[in-house]
């Protein structure tokens, strides 16, 4: 498992994704949710991409980004912008959103990465406010009124449009998780971890810290943008206050922390668990309970299991210190 190559992993991820694709409609039938299962699953998968993207910067290099919602919004508004010009297929919009998100990540990194710790986090929060103000005042994409994006009634090859969106998000999950895992095992991953542990010592070991941090912000921003690209077609009516909402910023941080930030598995597990829990709570209790639940779980994990679920499992299997290796 540890030595599985990237291509092998990608193949396994595709097989798992295919299994999910065939499995999900059955759960929908059992629960009597019908097509709603795709809406719920799409939301969970979207959080897997967001959490994985956040973790590239926040987990691997230790720079906590509070502005995830802004990158997500950049992705959605890239779609709105191009939709107004000429409706493009969603996969192309995803690529465009990745480019815009990556560039904004790069810009944000360049402006803020000389700051460390809480100062960096506050700067990302400020950047989110600046971007939201820009969008609110940009009439072409709807401004504060919001924007309607009418999705086509049907799409070739798929039963319904929502199923199509679900498959796209499933593909993004495969890409994001494979990239995150590849980074983790590469020289880049070692450089990121060195930055997280001790930036001065990393520099003294020959790690070009600023360059690596810029790569991390750009990659993280690109994946968050990708996660946002299909969203206007999913939601139909887009409001700045919605896509810049607290729940995206908070979930992007909470999910990796609950799962565990050191590996690619953490955000995946955290997002699936928390995301599913939120969907179930939305249907059974109320959508307002979500945020409360996330808050409580976050506090619980930060205190009881700071290394997340992955950390808990690792501790169970770890050899006692001093035992021969």
């Amino acid at each position, binding site marked *: 498992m540890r030595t599985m190559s990237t291509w092998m992993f990608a193949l396994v991820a595709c097989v798992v994704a295919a299994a999910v694709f065939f499995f999900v409609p059955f759960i929908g039938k059992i629960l009597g949710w019908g097509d709603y299962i795709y809406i719920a699953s799409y939301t969970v998968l979207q959080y897997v991409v967001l959490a994985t993207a956040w973790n590239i910067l926040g987990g691997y290099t230790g720079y906590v980004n509070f502005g995830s919602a802004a990158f997500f919004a950049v992705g959605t508004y890239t779609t709105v912008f191009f939709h107004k010009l000429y409706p493009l297929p969603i996969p192309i919009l995803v690529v465009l959103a990745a480019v815009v998100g990556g560039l904004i990540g790069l810009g944000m990194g360049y402006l803020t990465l000389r700051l460390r710790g809480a100062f960096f986090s506050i700067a990302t929060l400020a950047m989110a406010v600046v971007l939201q103000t820009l969008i609110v005042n940009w009439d072409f994409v709807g401004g504060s009124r919001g924007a309607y994006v009418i999705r086509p009634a049907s799409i070739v090859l798929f039963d319904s449009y929502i199923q199509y969106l679900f498959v796209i998000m499933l593909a993004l999950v495969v890409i994001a998780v494979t990239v995150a895992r590849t980074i983790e095992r590469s020289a880049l991953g070692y450089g990121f971890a060195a930055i997280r542990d001790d930036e001065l010592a990393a520099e*003294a*070991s020959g790690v070009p810290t600023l360059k690596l941090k810029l790569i991390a912000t750009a990659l993280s921003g690109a994946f968050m943008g990708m996660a946002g690209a299909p969203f206007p077609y999913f939601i139909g009516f887009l409001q700045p206050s919605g896509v810049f909402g607290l729940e995206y910023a908070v979930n992007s941080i909470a999910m990796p922390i609950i799962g565990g930030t050191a590996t690619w598995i953490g955000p995946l597990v955290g997002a699936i668990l928390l995301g599913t829990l939120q969907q179930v709570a939305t249907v059974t209790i109320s959508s307002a309970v979500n945020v409360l639940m996330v808050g409580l779980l976050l506090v619980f994990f930060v205190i009881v299991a700071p290394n997340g679920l992955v950390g808990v499992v690792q501790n169970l299997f770890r050899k006692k210190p001093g035992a021969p290796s």
Partner: protein
Amino acid sequence: MSAPILEVSGLGKRFGGFVALENIDLKVAPGERLGLIGPNGSGKSTLVNCICGTLINDTGTVQFNDRDLKGLITHERTRLGMARSFQLPRPFFSMTIADNIRVPLLYTLNAHRSEEQIAARCNELLGLVGLAGKATQFPRDLTQVDMRKLELARAMAVEPKLLIADEAMAGLSGSEVTDIVNLLITLNERGITVILIEHIMSAVMQFSQRLVVLVSGKKIADGAPDIVIRDPEVERAYLGQ
């Protein structure tokens, strides 16, 4: 003296109104073992930080292998062959001992190394400092002296021409100090120029071929160790009048 590997001239550094270093000149010959001493707050670590690029000197120049280092940041200087260990060990705490060494191995040599070469070099370095049996442990499980050894092994992994050991022995017991001094002499015998910054005089005297003394940001002595420590000015700086 052959062409110096490190040449510091007219170096000055201020922190606001406080002059930390003033007009420092220092030449180090290839293969030399230089001791750098001075009371607390005399500017030793500031000088190291200016040489390594952690701090930027206000005046003067630093030349390494006849190359002016102005404008080069720390990792670029590291890649030219200048390594340092930190006064307080700064290991990468989330990584195993072996992975701590792997980071500089991955980032310093331009030529791509295969996984086998990296693993081999890693074992070799850990063997050199006597940590081979602890490769899979984490830094938090190490003793203070092993932490210092890890610090030196990590510095060695950048294949340095010059190693600056900033108080590599602070807080160690007598036999542990001897361990580290012998290790540094071994490294020097392999052709690495070493600058040792230290308070433990027995270690400095045992190690150094030449001694430089800093007091209040100025260089007050530079020469053979046994002559330098009998210099009245040096005695005054350490013992008072």
